[in-house]
């Protein structure tokens, strides 16, 4: 943590810095990606893949979001519309001032993943946190083995990051991309079906200590874990990121605890092996 510059007011980790939205990408009817820079055009901070940022529209509210990726001078947050704050964000325009503080959380275990094959599984907006590691591993392609992405959404229209899915990632060597949707439409030529079944159909091999990075709605995670167990993935190699109600982000406010762990500080990334040692209260 120490080498990372924190985007916080020098006064307190709870006081944010004012940033602005520099670009908005409409991913699906209810998901937008926001590019965020500081007022002088810099990146608010340099997060590790999987870390979180606390985003606020000052008069609407404050919420913790995963940082889906970063650019030279900006952070990207992909946000689904589902409440007061996210409504306000979706109505915001380029140039809107928001505040950001962070980065929070542990991020994905990069050292652990290095040199290994990685299987990425995402469902719906759950691809957002996973994407931070996908883009990182593409940028540091030589550090990782084979990459495979399995991604599913409700419908073709609900697939997020279409530019990555259909353009950027298809050009990456040794990256296998498998898409599925719950319900297809006339134009959809790919697989139709739920993600867990699709995993079993594709039957990725756990050989070579393959790591699986998983995120999606709870019900999908539950069944994916069963599928992965069938395929022989080790609990230590299954990595997921959790959601809890977070307020402070620095392990003080107490509400995101799972047992004696705080999701904001010790998480949000946990291996399945770690989760099995925690109370099932998430």
């Amino acid at each position, binding site marked *: *943590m120490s080498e990372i510059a924190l985007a916080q*007011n020098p*006064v*307190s*980790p*709870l*006081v*944010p*810095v*004012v940033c*602005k939205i520099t670009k908005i990408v409409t991913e699906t009817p209810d998901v937008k990606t926001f590019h965020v820079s500081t007022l002088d055009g810099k990146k608010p901070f340099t997060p590790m893949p999987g870390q979180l940022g606390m985003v*606020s529209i*000052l*008069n609407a*509210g*404050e919420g913790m979001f995963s940082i889906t990726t970063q650019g030279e001078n900006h952070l990207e947050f992909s946000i689904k519309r*589902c*409440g007061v704050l996210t409504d306000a964000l979706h109505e915001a*325009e380029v*140039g*809107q*001032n*928001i*505040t950001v503080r962070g980065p929070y959380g542990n991020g994905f275990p990069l050292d652990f993943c290095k040199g290994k094959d990685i299987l990425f599984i995402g469902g719906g907006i759950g691809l957002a946190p996973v994407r931070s590691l996908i883009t990182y591993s593409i940028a540091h392609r030589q550090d990782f083995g084979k990459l495979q992405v399995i991604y599913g959404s409700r419908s073709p229209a609900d697939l997020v990051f279409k530019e990555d899915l259909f353009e950027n990632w298809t050009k990456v060597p040794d990256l296998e991309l498998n898409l599925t949707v719950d319900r297809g439409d006339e134009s959809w030529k790919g697989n139709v079906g739920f993600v867990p079944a699709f995993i079993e159909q594709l039957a990725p091999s756990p050989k070579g200590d393959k790591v699986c990075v998983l995120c999606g*709605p*709870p019900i999908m995670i539950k069944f994916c874990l069963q599928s992965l167990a069938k395929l022989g993935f080790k609990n230590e190699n299954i990595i997921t990121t959790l*959601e*809890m*109600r977070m*307020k*402070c982000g*620095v*392990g*003080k*406010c*107490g*509400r995101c*605890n799972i*047992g*004696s762990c705080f999701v904001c*500080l010790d998480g949000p990334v946990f291996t399945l092996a770690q989760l099995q040692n925690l*109370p*099932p*209260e*998430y």
Partner: protein
Amino acid sequence: MKAIAKAKLNTLLDAIAKESNLLVPVSGDGTSKFAPYTQGAQLSFDGRTLLPPKDVFFPQTEKMYKFKTNGMNASVETALEAPRLQVLFGIRPCDAKSIHCLDHVFLTKGYVDEFYKAKKDATLIVSIGCNGPAQPTCFCKSMGVNPQEAEGVDVHLYDLGTDYGVVAKTEKGEKLFLDKYASFFTETTAQVPALADFPLEVNVDGITEKLEKMFDHPLWEEVAKKCLGCGACTYLCPTCHCFDISARVAGDQGFRFRCWDSCMFSEYTRMSAGNPRPSKKERVRNRMLHKLQYFKERYGDLLCTGCGRCLSKCPVNMDITKIIKQVREADLA
């Protein structure tokens, strides 16, 4: 040991109040709490206050920053103020222990909470020992607190009957209290009297280890039944420190503040995706485990100081000592 007669305490307090913010236990209107010293206020030195001293460092509502919006533009201005030196006079050893617990939370594990630290650093803490239970519900002795001597304070006063024996525990206490007000103190050879018995006792040996195996135990269902789900226990608890961050918005300006929150409220963990603690069983369990297991695992201390406030004011007499006993007796089948 230096000493001051209890009868002369007011003259000392007058002197302190002239130079610093002085907070003393004040009673009245059916409650007692730490409040600024005023002459003629009803001082309450016969035991712990009803409201814990945690709000001195961690107020129930605390403004963090102000903001203004103007169209798309926004600005933020921190509301952290440099507090002036204050003296917190008359906390009990149980409360001193609670401040030690709060220090763990707000000052360690990578992040320092400046709002807490600023107030803590500017405060000189003077504690008073108890020679026995101030209330029937006191059980601090069982929780590893020495009722007669507080830890982690700047100055400690032993209760010697008609006098208080004064001992500095830190350099700050030596300089800013003992030396500064030396003229008020005399020398005494009196001994601290024997400690009276506590009617309420509980054995907490091995409780954390036992609880690690009891997350799914039916006991929680049982003990949670009578809980009403109010926040009296958490708000009166000297160690409960969970907070919420919320904002007050008025048109194009407002401020964001933090305020005490209670894990007993249904809204506490509610997310758009659901609530991981949907019923009072999970909430009561979380509170008990936080106090007796999670906090110990994370910081090495139990999060209960045995002050008995929750016990005395719980509308349904939820008794943490009884729950500890039930946990110890529980079968791990």
